């Protein structure tokens, strides 16, 4: 069973000219793509996510465009912003005047020092075709370099906006390097309008003791396809904490891959709020490569309408990774008769002195909890909405940027119809 329906997609997307820089990297990616088809549901890795919907659409190259970003500005991050529209840097919408001296936060196209480092994070095999597509065709992207021991006070804001009048394909790219002992907060947002395919690739390298807090918000348009890859390597004692919030896109897939060195820490939290015919897939890979690292994953999905949520969380503990502490939770709430959840937490352990656990639950709201709230005077709808909101809220609570936290809480409230209950934000 090969993907006869969609087999032109990869070659169509590659038919345009290859951008000039990173030639070797791009050639390698193209060579790998030439040997393969789009994955189908008979591939174990894509068992629950059918890409057939991509087949009927021809995605053209993304033109330069201008957008109004006033609705996306956050008061804590004035002057620390880079904006990319349709994969191209948007200098007029960006403003990096308040970025601390020494921090390099700029478009890839102007950052010569990034040339040698790009494409070096993560395994050099088994790339998803969408990562390779990005590598072969990305126009521009963001580079973020924080020097040794610098603790950056202001959070940085990165906006990837897509404006598609006709179907287009965009390839956002981001590379983050934190040198030894550096600390940073980064907010990465994806917004868009129209029908498009976006395949973002994020590469993160944290040196010894570096700490990155990474908030990722996906609010693509309801007609969009978002097929993203994230790869992070965390050196000894480093910490990578991320939270991915998925609201948009008719089909989205997040593929985070994290490698932990000795004593490193990682958090990979996620929330997906789905309705209509949305499909949201998260395939994470947590590699405990060295001893005494710890990881924590909480992935929550609220699924309404005909929507489908998919989670596949793999934790691999390498033979020498003694003293590993890994926890993973997949929690899913079904709100409608036709919603569907497929979850597969997965542990592979090759060391004996470890503490690993995972859990998964799928279910509706607890009738006893609903009854309890109703016995306290809430009507049935309010009780349901409050519990739904509460289910989502614990992922949002720890977002450090207050205005972002507020915006997202309001968004969740609106989506769970809990707004009538007043403002808890």
């Amino acid at each position: 069973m090969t993907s006869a329906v969609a087999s032109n997609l990869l070659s169509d997307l590659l038919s345009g000219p290859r951008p000039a820089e990173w030639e070797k990297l791009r050639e390698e990616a193209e060579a790998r793509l030439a040997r393969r088809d789009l994955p189908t549901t008979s591939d174990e890795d894509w068992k629950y996510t059918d890409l057939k919907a991509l087949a009927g659409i021809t995605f053209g190259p993304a033109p330069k465009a201008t957008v109004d970003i006033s609705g996306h500005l956050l008061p804590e991050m004035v002057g620390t912003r880079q904006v990319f529209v349709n994969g191209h840097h948007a200098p007029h919408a960006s403003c990096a005047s308040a970025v601390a001296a020494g921090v390099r936060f700029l478009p890839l196209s102007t950052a010569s020092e990034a040339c040698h480092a790009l494409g070096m994070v993560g395994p050099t095999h088994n790339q998803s075709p969408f990562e390779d597509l990005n590598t072969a065709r990305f126009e521009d992207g963001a580079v973020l370099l924080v020097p040794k021991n610098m603790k950056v006070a202001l959070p940085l804001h990165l906006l990837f906006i897509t404006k598609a009048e006709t179907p287009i394909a965009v390839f956002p790219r981001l590379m983050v390097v934190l040198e030894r002992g550096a600390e940073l907060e980064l907010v990465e947002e994806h917004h868009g309008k129209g029908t498009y395919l976006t395949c973002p690739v994020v590469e993160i390298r944290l040196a010894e003791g570096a700490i990155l807090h990474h908030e990722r918000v996906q609010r693509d348009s309801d007609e969009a396809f978002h097929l993203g890859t994230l790869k992070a390597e965390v050196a000894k004692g480093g910490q990578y904490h991320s939270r991915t919030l998925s609201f948009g896109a008719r089909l989205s897939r997040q593929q985070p891959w994290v490698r932990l060195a000795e004593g490193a820490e990682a958090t990979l939290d996620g929330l997906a709020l789905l309705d209509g015919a949305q499909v949201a897939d998260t395939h994470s890979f947590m590699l405990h490569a060295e001893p005494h690292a710890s990881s924590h994953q909480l992935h929550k999905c609220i699924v309404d309408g005909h929507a489908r949520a998919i989670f596949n969380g793999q934790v691999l503990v390498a033979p020498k990774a003694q003293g590993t502490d890994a926890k993973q939770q997949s929690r899913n709430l079904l709100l409608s008769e036709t919603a569907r959840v497929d979850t597969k937490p997965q542990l592979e352990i090759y060391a004996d002195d470890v503490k690993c656990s995972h859990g998964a639950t799928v279910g509706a709201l607890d009738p006893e909890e609903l009854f309890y709230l109703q016995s306290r005077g809430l009507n049935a709808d309010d009780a349901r909405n409050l519990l739904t909101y509460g289910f989502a809220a614990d992922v949002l609570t720890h977002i450090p940027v207050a205005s972002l936290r507020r915006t997202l809480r309001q968004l969740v409230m609106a989506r769970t119809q809990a707004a009538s209950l007043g403002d808890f934000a």
Partner: protein
Amino acid sequence: MSTTLNVVTSQEYKYGFVTDIEADSVAPGLSEDVIRFISAKKGEPEWLLEFRLKAYRHWLTMTEPDWAKVNYEKPDFQRIVYYSAPKPKVAKYASMDEVDPELLRTFEKLGVPINEQASLAGVAVDVVFDSVSVTTTYKEKLATVGVIFCSFSEAVREHPELIRKYLGSVVPAADNFYAALNSAVFTDGSFVFIPKGVTCPMDLSTYFRINNKESGQFERTLIVAEEGASVSYLEGCTAPQFDTNQLHAAVVELVALDQASIKYSTVQNWYAGDKNGLGGIFNFVTKRGLCKGKGSHISWTQVETGSAITWKYPSCILLGDDSIGEFYSVALTNHKQQADTGTKMVHIGKNTKSTIISKGISAGDSSNSYRGLVKIQPRAEGARNFSQCDSMLIGHTCSASTFPYLEVQNRSAKVEHEATTSKIGEEQLFYFQQRGIPAEEAISMIINGFCKDVFRELPMEFAVEATKLLSLKLEGSVG
């Protein structure tokens, strides 16, 4: 690595002897002719031969599954002997006295009671040696309450209408690669039929023995419990020690009608190969139960300690409303053993419930995986599942993996899965030793505690055997 906990070296496999018995075998290889030969040898009706040939033709179009987390050299299906039977001295045994004494001695050595007088009271046994059933005890006594318990070949002759109705109704001939192979070449096995309203007066048991070096064992078990009937069935198996691999590809089908209950327990102790991974059984088995009727109940309990490679997922199709499926498993792997085992619970009917308790213990250089599927179909209002999969690692060269698939399509369902990993710690052992319990005994006690939830589900005799088996397998695990 600690000083106390050292590489595990288990005791020699004590069932590894070969019985020197004259066998009636067909030449190695598989073809339609071999299938016709088996069918003719068993005097089978035309429809059964057709069933086999259809399965074989389909099998030819299939490829061996490779998704399991096991590595092995694929068997050469043309080098396997598909039919091997101890040559009877007479056409049919009228009584036990006519059975070849060599065969009797074999089962005596294995501790399997095939002599009714000498047997454990209350357990009827069907004994399968390579391709044929040797004897079935207590048949007459069971017949008085209407229970049919006999070898599969006999059932084909005596009760063709039941076999025709139920054979392949749970595991279709084309279900998977090994089930198709089995459907084409199965030789014998057990058949159990419990009529309406009858509670089987004693536990039923089948003992499987592979003896021939080249032979594969392809047995077929079919258990049918009619409305309100109930039965407890036990399965045991051993094989001699050879330095080549033998293939065991069985199919077990259970059918439970309204309010019926089937409890199926296995203690699997096929030869596991030596400590360098030479030899051992490839255990590629399809076991599935169909809870067809309302309120029916199927429970699988397995203690998997043997086999070089295990690929086995006893499953329940919960079709009837209010039906219940259970899976209790202890899988122990040592040396170079590899096990990929678990269950499937497919919830179709309303208010169906399933419980999965899986305990995996890996030692030596072994690999032990739990792979399970819980599927809640859209119509399964009020379905409920609870799964717990715990792993224990002994030593730092083994691995433990968990691959649970949860597919939920009904919002009123409640599905929970938990998994943990632990090890036998230095401190735990120290604590035991401090109180005068030697390390070896301490390990055995810790493991028994770890497996308690599963052992509790085993019938008495099996629970004792399983406990003993686990400690034997891990003997010498402390240095």
